[in-house]
């Protein structure tokens, strides 16, 4: 392959070409409905990037990323609920449950600045705390995965049960809120959100790339491959794992916020168990440890899902399961790993 540098470049850059085309050409050709779908799927690429960071590189298979995804969504959802109210007014749903005054933890979300930080810092803190407790006790492998899923269920049930605090099962709608005088659900705002998503996907990719390309990234890979060995060399692996788990949490929060405003609602369904498993499947199919593969996996699988579901609603789950089996058995490095073959970092 070395005698064909153009072939190597082609292999290397084609996935990027696909993404650039998706980001630049599709907004012109796609009708608003499809463009909105693409924006949602691209925003899911950000949570997938975080999963690639903790799973593909560090070997931490979290089945609970929905927690952080939802926290980001709720942070923005609460702000939008408050944003278009006259002073003294409460979001509508509070009236259904006879709540007369705004719960205390809602107060700071009136501030756009606070919300901007809360979207990623709250999930990062929750992930960091959960991660620290788990990693300090050296819980790993399957036990870690089960624990994250259990935590997800706790959050799922809690949010479902809290009508008076966050409207329980119904979630928070965002479409009818206004930003700068326009409805969030309008084509104009949705198109702006699409561009914002593109920018943030690139930024998130860049962050993950920066984290993984140097010695810090080598430590992550070494944790995945032989963590005890690394401890005997002097590395406090707990702090590395806590740090990347918090970063993945922050990315999930940003992803959840973007997804919320492009779907018009945030609800406890964001923390449903199957959804968090699907996130892992996107990364597996796209290619673990490739970063860009995680984004491609999220976009491609979700587009396939929406196309198949429109035609044959019953069959999607079978196709998704089949795809996962195919990748695990035939392409263990995912689509991108197979496309790139194995390359050594210089």
């Amino acid at each position, binding site marked *: 392959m070395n005698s064909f540098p153009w072939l190597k470049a082609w292999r290397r850059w084609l996935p990027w070409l696909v993404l650039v085309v998706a980001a630049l050409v599709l907004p012109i050709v796609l009708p608003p409905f499809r463009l909105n779908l693409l924006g949602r799927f691209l925003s899911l690429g950000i949570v997938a990037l975080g999963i690639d960071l903790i799973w593909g590189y560090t070997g931490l298979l979290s089945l609970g990323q929905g927690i952080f995804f939802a926290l980001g969504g709720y942070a923005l959802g609460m702000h939008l609920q408050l944003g278009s109210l006259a002073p003294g007014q409460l979001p509508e749903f509070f009236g259904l449950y006879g709540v007369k005054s705004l719960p205390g933890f809602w107060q700071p979300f009136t501030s756009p600045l606070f919300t901007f930080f809360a979207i990623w810092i709250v999930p990062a803190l929750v992930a960091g705390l959960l991660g620290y407790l788990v990693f300090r006790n050296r819980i790993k492998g399957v036990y870690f995965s089960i624990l994250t899923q259990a935590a997800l269920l706790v959050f799922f049930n809690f949010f479902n049960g809290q009508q008076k605090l966050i409207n329980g099962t119904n979630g928070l709608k965002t479409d009818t809120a206004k930003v700068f005088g326009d409805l969030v659900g309008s084509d104009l705002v949705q198109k702006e959100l699409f561009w914002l998503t593109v920018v943030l996907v690139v930024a998130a990719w860049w962050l993950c790339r920066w984290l993984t390309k*140097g*010695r810090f990234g080598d*430590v992550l890979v070494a944790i995945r491959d*032989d963590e005890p*060995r*690394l401890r*005997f060399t002097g590395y*406090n692996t707990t702090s*590395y794992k806590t740090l990347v788990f918090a970063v993945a949490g922050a990315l999930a929060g940003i992803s959840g916020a973007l997804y919320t405003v492009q779907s018009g609602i945030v609800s406890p369904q964001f923390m449903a168990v199957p959804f968090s498993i699907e996130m892992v499947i996107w990364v597996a199919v796209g290619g673990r440890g490739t970063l860009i593969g995680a984004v491609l996996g999220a976009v491609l699988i979700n587009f396939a899902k929406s196309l198949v579901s429109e035609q044959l609603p019953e069959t999607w789950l079978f196709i998704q399961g089949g795809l996962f089996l195919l990748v695990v058995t035939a392409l263990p490095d995912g689509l991108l790993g197979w496309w790139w073959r194995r390359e050594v970092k210089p």
Partner: protein
Amino acid sequence: MTALKPLLELRDVSVSFDGFWALKELNLSLRPGELRAVIGPNGAGKTTFLDVITGKLKPQRGDVFFRGSSLLGKSENQIARLGIGRKFQTPRVYQNLSPRRNLELAISGQSTPLQLLFGGLDGAARDRVQHLLAVVGLEEQAHRLAGGLSHGQKQWLEIAMLVAQDPDLLLVDEPVAGLSDAETERTADLLKRLAGEHTVLVIEHDMEFIRNLQAPVTVLHEGHVLCEGPMEQVQNDPRVIEVYLGSDADLETMEDH
């Protein structure tokens, strides 16, 4: 004997696994700069003994002192940062990193996560990595995945990683298993050169190699020290002969001299 304080001292260390005492009131001390060989039949507790020093196992009884302060209750990474390095019985290199990156990780063991993120490797460290790659003959393979190296190359890479880590005390578990005669000899030379500036403890089955080291020998048996002394004295000790006769594993290597 000078009044040098021991660098490492184990006092009455006992470790039990479900009622089986892998180490029984083990006492051992190493002077700074010493080169020491530890031998013993299979199951004598050699690896358990390294696990206790490096913090992987906590002894039920006894204490371990490094430069006069106890290591008990310290984690593996804290002990490593104090200056104790370990090479494992089967080579454990990071398979999905290149030999160069393996060495760069070994050399950065004292760094914090933020230092790794925001600081590069300085010129001196890079030169050292390059030098070590040359010493172990892995310059050509420096950019391939370490997982693809031969067994001998992995052994050497791991020894190079231990040297890169630059600990005061090197614990070397079976460094020549699976190496050719020439490589074995080079390893013995390397360890002899490291001693003096470093303190080196070698666990090995290969008696010819131990003889080559010309180091005092400690014989472990059933979790305690059976005897200690120069190789000639140890191999003529009737207790040692009996122990090795009892288990045929190393009989031939003991007798061929």
